[in-house]
């Protein structure tokens, strides 16, 4: 049996199982709380797994392994930033948000504000962040399928060439995610996340053990071999080969590169607690204490996984080699599956073992992507229905039924849009795209959330200014950065309209978001609603009157 057949069979098994769960979950979904928050019935461990499932995306599994495999140590920065970021969520956000809110991030932002402007702003930012993040997942899926189906330029599969197959995959992934969300709602999506997190952890753990076994459990030997095979020697193990690169004789470029590294570092650590699809996970548990438990579980699961990325990345560098990875995918997104192939050949008996293990890991990667895109679609469609439709358009007069129907239609539309965008942006590095989503979340959502929870005087104007200035400056700076135009790896390499020197906007746009929120508040003519703040603060800290 060939790899492609086996992968397709395994993936179909996953799809069949998750669809069955989805249909089952849809029968349990009777009201809005079921659809948006899974009936708030999940345990701390279940939600911790689901958070892991939502968070450990294609960027983590394929992207980080790829960056480490191609560039060495620098990729590890992502693993560290993505993990440390959870402390912001744990200490400052998770429990307070759980108690104060109901279905979406905006429930907290709009608690003591005028509903229409704040909910509109929150819906805009939720959709923006989610679309960037979705894009990254779609790109990962496209890269994967070319490897999986063994399609080299010129070859065909079911009469499709590589490009057609990539597009077909993106369409298929998009269609499946729409089904999960529309049919299963939060309950179905959460179970899909849990199954996926389990598969991913088992798969990554197995690969890690095999990589280490190949080096007799001597990490130093693995690193040494990876460094030698990379052709870069010790530089491969030191920071600085991609981020904060020192350009000889160009002090200005060196300065920009180093600031870019700081910018990336800040965006990674502050982004997580502003990601709408992560925030709504805290509503799926009954109490703030369970929300805390679920974050603790998530930190354990996610931290362990990011330790595995070291072995996966350096293992791919040592056992597959940078050249072979670049040939398959210039962004490095296929390093982990290629490593699975190499490990399978070595440990499970030659050609067939390689194909079989590759098939397993590829199916895991597809499951990963599918679960994350479902979470993102759910977050953005919930926000459109609950924030924009129910509270802005209908001014709170919509029935639960109307709201849920709107959420399902919105999921369909968001799904369609992300399929189209995914097709356009097929060849970018996945981890990098996610870093942009983090920068936008950290600039727009995080300031608004923190001010809402902790600053008594914060006003409607402060909230809208923070969100619009934060996401506006982040998106604008990215548009005029070397990522979009004016460099060989840009989205539009042939044109050049860039003037902003950094790839990651965080170091500018995050302070812009915070300052705008502060300015908007002190320049407000209206005073903060003290009674509402009392209700929110007491509810957030004690759970009194929480949904």
């Amino acid at each position, binding site marked *: 049996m060939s790899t492609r057949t086996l992968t397709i069979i395994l993936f179909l098994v996953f799809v069949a199982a998750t669809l069955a769960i989805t249909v089952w979950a849809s029968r349990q979904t009777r009201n809005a709380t079921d659809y948006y928050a899974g009936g708030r019935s999940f345990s701390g461990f279940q939600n911790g797994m689901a958070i892991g499932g939502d968070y450990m995306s294609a960027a983590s599994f394929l992207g980080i392994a790829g960056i480490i495999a191609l560039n060495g140590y620098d990729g590890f920065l992502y693993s560290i930033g993505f993990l440390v970021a959870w402390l912001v969520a744990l200490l400052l956000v998770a429990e307070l948000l759980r108690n104060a809110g109901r279905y979406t991030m905006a429930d907290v932002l709009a608690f003591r504000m005028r509903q229409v402007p704040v909910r509109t702003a929150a819906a805009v930012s939720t959709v923006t962040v989610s679309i960037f993040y979705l894009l990254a997942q779609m790109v990962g899926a496209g890269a994967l399928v070319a490897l999986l189906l063994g399609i080299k330029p010129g070859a065909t599969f079911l009469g499709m060439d590589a490009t057609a197959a990539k597009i077909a995959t993106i369409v298929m992934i998009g269609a499946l995610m729409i089904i999960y969300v529309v049919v299963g709602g939060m309950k179905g999506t959460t179970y899909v996340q849990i199954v996926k997190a389990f598969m991913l952890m088992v798969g990554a753990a197995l690969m890690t053990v095999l990589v280490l076994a190949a080096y007799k459990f001597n990490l130093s030997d693995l690193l040494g071999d990876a460094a030698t095979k990379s052709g870069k020697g010790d530089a491969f193990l030191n920071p600085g080969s991609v981020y904060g690169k020192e350009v000889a004789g160009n002090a200005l470029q060196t300065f920009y590169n180093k600031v870019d590294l700081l910018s990336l570092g800040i965006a990674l650590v502050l982004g997580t607690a502003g990601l709408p699809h992560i925030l709504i996970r805290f509503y799926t548990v009954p109490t703030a204490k369970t929300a805390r438990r679920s974050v603790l579980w998530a930190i*354990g699961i996610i931290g362990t996984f990011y330790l595995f990325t070291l072995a996966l990345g350096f293992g791919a560098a040592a056992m597959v080699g940078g050249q072979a990875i670049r040939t398959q995918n210039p962004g490095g997104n296929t390093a982990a599956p290629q490593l699975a192939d190499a490990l399978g050949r070595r440990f499970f008996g030659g050609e067939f073992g390689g194909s079989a293990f590759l098939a397993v890991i590829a199916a895991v990667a597809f499951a990963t992507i599918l679960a994350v895109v479902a979470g993102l679609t759910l977050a953005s469609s919930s926000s459109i229905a609950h924030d924009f439709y129910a509270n802005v358009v209908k001014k709170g007069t919509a029935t639960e039924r109307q709201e849920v129907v709107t959420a399902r239609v919105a999921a369909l539309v968001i799904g369609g849009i992300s399929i189209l965008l995914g097709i356009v942006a097929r060849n970018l590095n996945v981890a990098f795209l996610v870093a942009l989503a983090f920068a936008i979340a950290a600039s727009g959502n995080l300031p608004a959330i923190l001010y809402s929870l902790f600053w008594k005087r914060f006003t409607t104007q402060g909230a809208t200014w923070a969100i619009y200035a934060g996401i506006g400056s982040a998106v604008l700076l990215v548009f005029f950065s070397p990522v979009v135009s004016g460099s060989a790896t840009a989205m539009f390499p042939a044109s050049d309209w860039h003037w902003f020197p950094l790839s990651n906007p965080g170091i500018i746009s995050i302070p812009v978001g915070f300052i705008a929120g502060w300015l908007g508040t002190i320049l407000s003519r209206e005073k903060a609603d003290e009674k509402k703040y009392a209700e929110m603060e007491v509810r957030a800290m004690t759970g009194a009157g929480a949904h």
Partner: protein
Amino acid sequence: MAPDPYVETQGSAEFAGLRKTLRGFIFPMTAAFFIWYALYVVMSAYARDFMSIKLFGHINVALVFGLLQFVTTFLIAWLYERFSTRKIDPTAERIRERIENGPTPARVEEAVTK
């Protein structure tokens, strides 16, 4: 008009104490991990020679520093769990029950403060 139970609670000494205890932990801890993480990022950018020092075999300062970030993250998560279970949950629970079922908050607050 009956006094708003949330406003009453917010003004109570017990709630103020709870807020002080909570903020006294989460704000300094946030500052601590953020500075510690920032130090790692800044050194990755500007202290390359130090980060490249090999400690044993091919394992260098950069790798150990990175792994220490994992250790501190796990440690802070554990400390916070211990802190909130002991210092926050009992008081928060008491206040919540009083608002949701108890007698008028005003009298209880008085009793607690005195």
